[in-house]
């Protein structure tokens, strides 16, 4: 019975993606409390095998073990050997903030050729948004972009034998609703810093102004003039320019007046 439990544990570690804490747990169960482990698993496993008469009882036993929910499994670790909360959270669905007004602030589009990379990074982005206090909706799967090419197989003649190639771009849309613009910027910068290979990002950011935007512009005018001043000072005619006449003289001159007479 004991090897069967270890095999099931190995299987669990494969599904977990984080084999190190699980391995330490299995070793501890071998050394300290193997009897309790057996007692816990056997009564669950036996009724299952008896209930399903199709499966052979001995060989198929480990695969017939009931698969528990993640919350149960994590709870079964006990208080002394539980994972850190942040690591536990990875096995659960990402947490989300609730949007108050539902005003869209940022649209992030992720693109990739592979589903795994895309799903992983979308999940990462949503988790990051939660910790930055940004309400998120998505990931919305947008229509795939399929490009196809038909190519002659040979480099010369044989026109009738062809080969098809395709490239499918997968897209996900993540929308941020009524978040602080600075937090949105920080979120985008964070995603850029931890950009995942093979995943492209494109963001549309909207900023909302109060209705007194014109007054605010007027108030900021003197500062803008100060910064623009040195650049504007460079414009104009040179003091020592040889041309004495103004622009109106040249406009009234014969050369410019000529086509008007036509």
């Amino acid at each position, binding site marked *: 019975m004991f090897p069967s439990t270890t095999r099931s544990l190995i299987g669990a570690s494969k599904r977990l993606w984080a084999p190190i804490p699980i391995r330490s747990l299995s070793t501890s169960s071998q050394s300290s409390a193997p009897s309790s482990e057996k007692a816990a698993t056997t009564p669950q496993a036996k009724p299952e095998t008896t209930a399903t008469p199709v499966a052979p009882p001995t060989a198929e036993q480990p695969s017939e073990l009931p698969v528990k929910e993640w919350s149960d499994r994590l709870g079964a670790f006990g208080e002394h050997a539980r994972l850190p909360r942040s690591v536990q959270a990875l096995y659960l669905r990402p947490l989300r903030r609730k949007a108050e007004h539902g005003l869209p602030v940022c649209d992030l589009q992720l693109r990739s050729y592979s589903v795994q990379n895309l799903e992983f990074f979308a999940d990462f982005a949503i988790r990051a948004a939660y910790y930055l206090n940004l309400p998120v909706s998505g990931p919305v799967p947008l229509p795939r972009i399929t490009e196809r090419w038909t*190519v*002659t*197989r*040979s480099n010369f003649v044989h026109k009738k034998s062809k*080969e*098809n190639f*395709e490239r499918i771009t997968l897209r996900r849309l993540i929308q941020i609703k009524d978040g602080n613009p600075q937090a949105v910027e920080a979120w985008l910068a964070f995603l850029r810093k931890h950009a995942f290979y093979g995943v492209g990002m494109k963001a549309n950011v909207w900023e909302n102004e109060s209705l007194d935007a014109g007054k605010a512009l007027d108030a900021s005018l003197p500062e803008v003039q100060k910064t623009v001043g040195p650049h504007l000072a460079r414009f104009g005619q040179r003091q020592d320019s040889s041309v004495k006449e103004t622009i109106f003289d040249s406009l009234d001159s014969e*050369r410019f007046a*000529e*086509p008007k007479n036509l």
Partner: protein
Amino acid sequence: MSKVASMFHPKRLDLSGFVNTRLIRDHNKRNAFAQMEPERQALRYIIRNTSLPQRTRAQAQLQLSQMHCYTRPTQIKNRCVASGTARSVFRNFRLNRFQFRMQALAGELPGVKKASW
């Protein structure tokens, strides 16, 4: 303006990867066009501007027609970067159809797979 193509040749070969005489020539044409484009656009503007005197416009026409042929955008032709071929070059990959197939089968083009539907 002297009509010698060598005036557009760089002192040193500024291409890497697959190199071909025709590929180099096309590259020189692209450089020449990029270099002379403002001048061409100015002349084209003068020619089309009806408010300018006829004489100026005729002079501009002459000047534009006397510019070197390498400065014309119509001289530029897309060529395969892996083989230098000028026919059936895909814009997306800048590759000839055969080079595209070889590289796609080798898995060198990200996302491109054999399709069947």
